[in-house]
């Protein structure tokens, strides 16, 4: 466990040093990561693409050379973001997943595919690492978002804010 924790922390520190979280959007982050990996990343809503699969929140599979991330879409946006970050965390941690030549191959849900489930079933060391890194990234994003919110200002007080040293820092 200690080894995993060290690996997660080192990866997280590396990301924080390389990526500017002040401008975080999922698309922007995925772009940055796909440039780093030299492979496109695509996001797919799980239910519309595959229908309901019990216990499944998201997965990552390589389909026709593209990193495809599916996420549960009928949950809170914040939860969706976390699921997407979990799958991206696998990529960041250098984990592997199953590769397919087409979406049809995926219908049988073969072993080896990276799945984020809603409970402990099929949990592993890699999943623990991905979830912990996702939580750390999520926390970092929220920290920056809060920083941005602190310095933003409602239009009603915008004029006064200029004199209160609030707007300038935004």
């Amino acid at each position, binding site marked *: 466990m200690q080894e995993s924790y060290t690996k997660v922390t080192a990866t997280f520190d590396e990301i924080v040093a390389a990526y500017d979280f002040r401008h975080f959007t999922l698309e922007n982050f995925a772009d940055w990561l796909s440039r780093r990996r030299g492979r496109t990343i695509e996001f797919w809503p799980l239910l519309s693409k595959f229908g309901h699969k*019990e*216990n499944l*929140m998201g997965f990552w599979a390589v389909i026709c050379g593209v990193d495809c991330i599916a996420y*549960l879409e009928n*949950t*809170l*946006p*914040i*939860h969706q973001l*976390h699921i997407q970050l979990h799958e991206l965390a696998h990529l960041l941690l250098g984990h592997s997943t199953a590769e397919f030549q087409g979406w049809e191959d995926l219908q049988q849900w073969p072993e080896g595919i990276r799945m*984020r*489930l*809603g*409970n*402990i079933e099929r*949990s592993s060391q890699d*999943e*623990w690492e*991905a*979830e*912990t890194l996702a*939580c*750390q990234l*999520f*926390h970092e994003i*929220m*920290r920056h978002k*809060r*920083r941005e*919110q*602190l*310095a*933003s*200002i*409602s239009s*009603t*007080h915008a*004029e*006064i*804010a*200029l*004199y*209160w*040293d*609030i707007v*300038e*820092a935004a």
Partner: protein
Amino acid sequence: MDTTVDIFSAVIGWLVTGYLTYRTRRQRKIIGKTTPHAVSEIWLLSLFLSLYFTLRVPSIAIGLDSLFPWHNSARLLAYICVGWAAWYLNSAVYRIAGRELSGWVRYLPGAMSTLLLIFFPFSLALSPSTGDELPATFLDLLFRQILYVYMIALLGSSLILFRTLQSTEKTALVRLRLIFSQVSILAAISLAFVKIIDTLFGFYLPGSSVLSFLEYTGSLLKAMLVLPWLAVYLPVRLSVPVLHAWHSLRALWILPNVRIVERKVRRFCKPFASENPTLWQTLRSPDYYATRSLIHILDGRKQLSSDSDPEVIQLCQRLDGVEDQMDIPELLAFYARLGRQMRRENRQVTSSAQRSTA
């Protein structure tokens, strides 16, 4: 102690006034527009408050008094200044809130100053300054009581508006400044109340032991008035760490309640991946662990939604009270409330079980 507090308050007052003057001039240059009325009024509030504290410094008061053939000119000016400061505060808050002041209220500071000037030759001007706060004549007492009531009325009205502004304000930094302003105003109102009691005791029971206690309380309240006033103008660079610290403290406060909900969810749905932080780790990063608990809850919320166990259905109904647009702090606040509610229910169940056993 009172003199030290007055000197300290005057220094802070002039620092704030200087800073506001610099900012106003700089922003006027950058924007090229006239200064908004509310900003000018905040500047005037600061100026009058600084003048008030300066005129309360004994050496300055004595020096000023020696220029006139009558007594207590400094005190008269100090009272006029504090009256106008309260007025400008009230007016600025009304403008920021986008409200109109009713017609007669506009004449209040002018009327108050006139009243002070009319009373002055018959009260303060006649009694040599003793350096203490005690009224020498009944007119002096009356004159001060009117001033304090006027202060309480204006400050009270400002405080109510500040509360309203705070409840609708979404920007954390502005909220922080509104909170500091309210602490300052509350201290000023309390100070006016203490002064009312102090002057009454001073006039009717000049030897009372309560007086020294009241004087000490007054000095303490002055410090409480001035420090948050300074904090209102903290630059963003300094305010943000204060807010981060506040968020962490808040997370630490709500974490036990969020964990009650998390534990309940865990009973039916073991978490996908969990950390078992030590107390030290939790204390170092409470907002991280609060977020992590929240993710477990949200996982459970989805996971258990298709379960048919009546207890799970009931739990899901309670977890479902959240809305799509809710942000992390709002979600945490929601589940912390739910956790508190669950704890109360558990306590009730335990106590009724104990009663039935007994």
